[in-house]
């Protein structure tokens, strides 16, 4: 069945919702919107990282990159020293540009420097984390102009969510409806064949890395807008969460295969685990095991698929 993965993710989401509903009857009604909003940074970045993984590369620098970009935006916008108090509509494009350029730089390291992407982005993960701390200097940065905060806290209309949906839809269209999207898959599926078909592997890869940079900058903007606070720990560990979501969503780690829908469901699933556990009466002792429980669930999600796949395809080549 073609949509096996999506179906099982959907079932898991339903099971978790049901479980939570046992503890709180109005769980679904009260939490759906919040879970979606809380998933925004992961969701946006996952769209980019998914494309990177489809081309057969990986980007594990997004956590540090988000932190650095959030710090830059905070310094540009914050109305209190050391912030420069620049108008957000000016600052946001600057941050988006920086994000795209860093993404492009990563792409250049991978494509022209021929550094394996996992190593290039590991190096960046470490270095950009340092750069973020360096830039932040003292402590948290708060005091953002209302125009910026409105992007994240519009109570009537969740602008950030609408924007995220637009990003997801655009990514979906890119994958399915454009030549570029099909070429991204083609490069990941068989790079030498892609070359022979006249596709420039270099351009495609530069594009996906740059796009990931841009999307990370967007996520950073919405992050700052929503939480109104940037600290040195902003973004830490996000890269692992994103890669986990992309993989659980059914994107083959070797490239070429997987659909956006699965990733979207996986992001929702992994975001809601925390909320569901919060709503179950875990008791004060069990709460300490929350991270372990999440870990086990992710391990099961990552491996269970291999059980079923093995049975399906047997041992054929």
């Amino acid at each position: 069945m073609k949509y096996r993965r999506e179906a099982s993710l959907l079932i898991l989401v339903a099971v978790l919702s049901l479980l939570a509903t046992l503890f709180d009857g109005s769980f679904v009604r009260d939490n759906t919107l919040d879970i979606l909003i809380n998933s925004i940074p992961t969701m946006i970045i996952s769209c980019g990282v998914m494309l990177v993984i489809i081309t057969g590369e990986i980007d594990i620098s997004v956590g540090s990159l988000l932190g650095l970009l959030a710090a830059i935006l905070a310094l540009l916008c914050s109305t209190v020293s050391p912030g420069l108090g620049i108008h957000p509509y000016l600052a946001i494009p600057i941050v988006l540009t920086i994000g795209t350029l860093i993404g492009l730089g990563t792409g250049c390291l991978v494509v022209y420097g021929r550094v394996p992407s996992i190593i290039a982005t590991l190096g960046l993960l470490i270095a950009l984390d340092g750069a973020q701390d360096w830039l932040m200097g003292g402590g948290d940065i708060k005091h953002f102009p209302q125009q910026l905060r409105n992007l994240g806290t519009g109570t009537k209309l969740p602008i950030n969510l609408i924007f995220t949906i637009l990003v997801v839809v655009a990514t979906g269209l890119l994958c399915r409806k454009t030549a570029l999207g099909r070429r991204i898959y083609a490069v990941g599926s068989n790079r030498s064949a892609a070359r022979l078909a006249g596709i420039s592997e270099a351009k495609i890869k530069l594009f996906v890395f740059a796009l990931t940079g841009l999307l990370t900058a967007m996520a950073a903007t919405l992050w700052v807008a929503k939480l109104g606070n940037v600290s040195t720990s902003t973004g830490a560990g996000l890269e692992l969460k994103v890669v986990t979501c992309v993989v659980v969503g059914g994107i083959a780690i070797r490239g070429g295969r997987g659909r956006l829908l699965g990733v979207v469901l996986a992001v929702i699933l992994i975001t809601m685990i925390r909320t569901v556990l919060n709503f179950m009466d875990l008791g004060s002792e069990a709460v300490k095991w929350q991270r372990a429980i999440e870990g086990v669930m992710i391990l099961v999600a990552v491996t269970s698929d291999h059980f079923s796949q093995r049975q399906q395809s047997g041992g054929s080549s």
Partner: protein
Amino acid sequence: MNRTPDPIITIESVSKSYGGVEALSEICVDILPGEVHGLCGENGAGKSTLIKCLTGVIPPETGKITVDGTPLRHGDIHAAELAGIAVIYQESTAFLDLDLVDNLFVGREIKKFGWLDRRAMEKRALAVMQRLDFTLDLHTPLREFSIAQRQMVEMARACLRDCRLLIMDEPTASLSSRETKTLLGLVTQLRAAGVSVLYVSHRLEEIFQLCDRVTVFRDGKLVATTPIEQLNRDQLIGQMVGREVDVLTRHKEHTERTDKIRAKITGLCSRGRFSKISFEVRSGEILGIGGLVGAGRSELARAIFGVDRYDDGEIQIDGITLKKGSIQSAIEAGIAMVPEDRQHQGLILPMSVSENLSLTILAELTKYRLLHHDREAERVQSLMQHLAVKAANAKMEAASLSGGNQQKVVLGKWLATKPKLLILDEPTRGVDVAAKAEIHRLIRDLTEAGMATLIMTSDLPELITLSDRIEVMCEGEIAGQLEGGTATEEQVMRLAFPRGEAQRT
């Protein structure tokens, strides 16, 4: 036949060298419109390099290529494509994760307002399949198609490009006879439509059946371009190797065939792959397994060697039953296998010749569990001499050897284990004529020394001349037995085709 004097493509004194070695030197060939132009030569003769120059994958160093009188921009894939040059490569260029429509159009998508026009692409895909007389589902990922079906998609892809010149590089290497027939029919059809075809193949029968003229390369140099009527088989081979070779010696009756049963397979079944397979191989005997591609030959070979598990049945070597699905126990029992895919399964290309050769006998080369480097060098040296592997030294990367020599290394690493049963899956695919003859001779010598050999091959002359006995498989079952040497290709084919279809052909 409509013969216009002006060639559509002229190749004038094209040269190309890699690291000081001339791959092509001063090549001049012209291709006429509507002709099937054969291109022959041993591996490493420069055929692939010429193809790469023509398609713009690499630029030639000197010389020029003109299409209809206009020079082609060198090293530009798009320019070659625009000029109407399309190619079907030897190794599959399919995107296994993409569906048929995407495979046909990737790189040349049809767009409407910047978006993909899926409907238009589907329509054209159907049209081209109709023209080529086959039907496949448009939305199935190619992974789920057979190799032959993937090859058909490649054909369709080339046809879609409205090409003037279609280059086919060993298109039938992995096709069964029936599929080959379909494909050859297709080539004829293309010729009738005025498309020129540059046809590269090691299978001389196809060259004679199909081509109008044949160009032969040897060591990067042009030997001759000859109209096919002026050539016979031996002359063509002579042009290729520079001497007359007794390619496929007629089968000699083995006088020393013993009665000792080496391998006994009883009732082997694997769901969806093959069922009820039973046969015996005696020491000193070559048993050929014939059949169409997809008949289950390779799957059977993999099961015997323990690569895949099987559902039912038993494999015995010298009376000892093997463990299911364990390569290690198969090797311990004395089975060796030269797999189908030399580059991915047979060899570890980035490792040295020496490391490849000793990979199967590491246990023998250890002392106090440590590898004994001198002993390793000794063994490797003697193996290389025995097999006449042409390599500068044993430390060379296996990747730098020619196809024939690579295959000798694969053979060598298994002969080193002194196997009781040697399984060969397509042992001479993509191997040039001279190396092929050497490999055949080697197989025969070894078998006469008491080994049992099981050979799976799509190459019918090879199957018939090499085997003592032949089992023909059809749709996963054994359809019948034939005697080697005396069987005819027709007999094999009759057994190989599923019932009902045989009458039709």
